[in-house]
């Protein structure tokens, strides 16, 4: 039985993708707490927000690159300016339509990016992430 993680943040403008990804995560029983943001700005707001004096601090963040407005790269730059208390707990993983090697290497230039996967999020990806970071 896999250990449950506290909460997961999905950042993606595509409603269908969010629904599909959330369903996959839920189905695998990784967490009971999934938060969805539809843009980079919204995600930043969410991360800065406080509830009972505490920031949400998601354990795992999935980020899409191609988004209208603030895209994945811009979000990453802003994210790295946040205080440690505001940032995610452990892992920020990119999800993208792109199979482009250049995007992949660019993503790894960011300290906080721990993985790069092309869509759709699959069970094998999730297993891989959990094994690498949470066991």
């Amino acid at each position: 039985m896999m250990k449950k993680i506290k909460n997961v943040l999905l950042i993606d403008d595509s409603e269908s993708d969010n629904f599909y990804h959330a369903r996959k995560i839920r189905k695998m029983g990784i967490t009971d707490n999934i938060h969805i943001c539809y843009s980079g700005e919204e995600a930043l707001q969410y991360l800065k927000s406080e509830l009972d004096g505490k920031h949400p601090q998601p354990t795992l963040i999935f980020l899409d690159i191609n988004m209208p407005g603030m895209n994945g790269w811009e979000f990453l730059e802003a994210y790295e300016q946040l205080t440690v208390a505001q940032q995610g707990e452990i892992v920020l993983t990119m999800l993208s339509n792109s199979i482009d090697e250049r995007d992949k290497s660019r993503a790894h230039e960011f300290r906080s990016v721990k993985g790069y996967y092309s869509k759709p999020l699959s069970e094998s990806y999730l297993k891989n992430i959990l094994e690498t970071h949470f066991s």
Partner: protein
Amino acid sequence: MKRIRKVGLTNFILLVSSLIFAIFLIGFSFIKNTESVEEIAQSWEIKSNIRKVSSTISRIESYGLAYRFTGKEKYKQELLNAEKEYDSLIISLQELVSHNALQSKRLNDLDSELQKNLKIYREIIFNKTIRDSIHASSINESLYFSAPLQTNFEELLITANEILERRIDRYTLWKFIILGALGFATIIVFISLYNLIQKIKPLIEELLSTQEQLQTSNNNLKNTLTELEKSNAEKEREIKAKIVAIEETKKLNESLIAKNQQLDHFAYVASHDLQEPLRTVSNYLEIFQEDFPERVEGDAVMYFDFINKAVERMRKLISGLLSFSRLGTSGEMQKINLNKTVDKIKQDFTVVIEDRGITIESDDLPKIVGYRIEIKQLFQNLISNAIKFTPPPKKPHIKITYEETENYYNFHIADNGVGIPEKDFAKIFDMFSRLHSLKDYEGQGIGLAFCKKIVELHLGNIWVSSTLGEGTTVHFTLKK
């Protein structure tokens, strides 16, 4: 020039020396001639003096006789005058003949004889006693003393004449020598001139012909020059036209490159963006089948199967298109050992090679410079095509050969497969082009389009030759 100088010099020397000789001869002869003239004049003077002396003696005798018989003082005076005259004449005559010993002696003899006679004569004439007493016959003998002297005078004259004749002869001789020398000089001059002309003539002719030749070659040169100028102008025009053409080609190339980039970008963006909705379709097909398994039954299973297959195929096509647009962006050009590349492909294909009993023969392939991943893909696509289109039970036999030209490597990958009809030789390299139904051969029809793009990326060419039913050879070139 050398020849001209030589001929001129010999002639000049000959001419000048001959002339100097002739002039010298003429001058010498002239001096001799003049001398002869003087001598002749002297001889004449001697002759006339001899006659004068002779006549003076006659006068002495005549006046003496006249005085003896008349006793007139006048004759005595004349006699004395004649004696004086004789003295001066004999002195000058003696001087004149002093160079001739014989004549001098004769003259001296004559003078002493005369003086002796004259002494007696004077005594006879001036002494009255003797004049009257002496025997008349002996007186007479002494009175006419001039007669015996005539012989002496004649001797003198004969000798003088002989000398004169000799001198005249000599004078004539020198005159002829002068004339001869003049004639000789003239002849020499003429001969020299003739020789000179004879020798210069061919040179002049040569010069003239050379000049003509020069004129001709000059004209030819002028013509050639004009032609050259013309062809130069033409060449210049051609060059300008070529430069323009090159520039146009360059522009076209640049725009082509730009267009190609745009096309690649378009293919990238299109395939990238097409993937997203397609993924959504496949995602929700999956969810539908999971969530409503009871609805997927009977014919619906077949429909879903078709939809899934179509979605899967479209995903492959799009991903192929995406990869196609990404060709040549994987890295830098580098040195590639093609033997290793082929070995690697053989390793990848180990299973199918063993299953089908495939033989892959290969030359000792060269090391080339290119995009590593793309070059491997090129060989891999061609080898897998060769296997794919050699259906069992035939055992695929693949032969990889190559040869080298100055600028290219020419490769040939031959198989013993189904072959390709000639009308399709060009078509097979088009994107998504397929000659067979999916039922017979799987595939997206992108393999050879990839190959074509990879070969073009390496500035080469790709084409095919085939005999239907016997096999196909894919030829391609890669620029060195």
